[in-house]
């Protein structure tokens, strides 16, 4: 059965593994023929959208990975505005493919997908 997934990411891309797990889950689901319609970034998860991040070159770059995955598979990457503003994540630092919007987009992801999968600590 083909499923439609929403994903919630609650941690930043470095201190916790949650973002990596979320990314790998999304990529694996798509690989298996499922759909990932939206990834919602909340709490420190909003740091996944920061294009100013510069991991060392031999390390994975999740900000770029999300952006590429979204471009290839038409995934809506949504950063929570309230969580983003208090952490200094603004329009001008967003990587391609991310957009800032409200928490309603998270609730909508819960309503419109077969499953909402939560990644956090």
């Amino acid at each position, binding site marked *: 059965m083909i499923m439609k997934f929403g994903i*919630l990411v*609650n941690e930043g891309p470095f201190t916790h593994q949650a973002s990596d797990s979320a990314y790998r889950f999304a990529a694996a689901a798509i690989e298996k023929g499922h759909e990932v319609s939206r990834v919602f970034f*909340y*709490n420190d998860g909003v740091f996944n959208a920061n294009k100013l991040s510069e991991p060392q070159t031999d390390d994975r770059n999740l900000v770029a990975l999300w952006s590429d995955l979204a471009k290839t598979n038409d995934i809506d990457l949504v950063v929570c505005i*309230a*969580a983003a503003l208090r952490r200094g994540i603004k329009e001008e630092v967003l990587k391609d493919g991310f957009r800032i919007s*409200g*928490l*309603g987009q*998270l*609730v*909508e992801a*819960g*309503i*419109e997908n077969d499953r*909402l999968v*939560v990644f*956090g600590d």
Partner: protein
Amino acid sequence: MEPWEEEEGPEVVKRFMYVNRRAPYGTIYALECLEVVLVAAAFDQDVSVVFVDDGIYQLKKDQDTSGIGMKNFSKTYRALDDYDVEKIYVEKESLEKRGLTEDDLIIPVEVVAADNLRGIMAQQDVVISS
């Protein structure tokens, strides 16, 4: 049925459960989860909120944050009732382990044993825990 008799409301109503597991201060999870619940309440979904482990401290009466320079947001939980969020569960075991009773809490709740809570959780469409 005449058009004006049609019931208003969303096409899909899902059961959303928000699970609070952490103390109100020390990390931002409690505050940001409360923000989600207040927004979610506006979507006419079936919303319930659960407090387990140190999460029950979020509802503790008489919080005083003056010593840590944080905003005391505990009174905001009283707004849940205004937003028609009426299903508020507190795990019995978590309460007892911390020597607290319902009387120590800032809002009326339903105290539920872990076994029953598991059943309620299993009926949900979406569970968001923080």
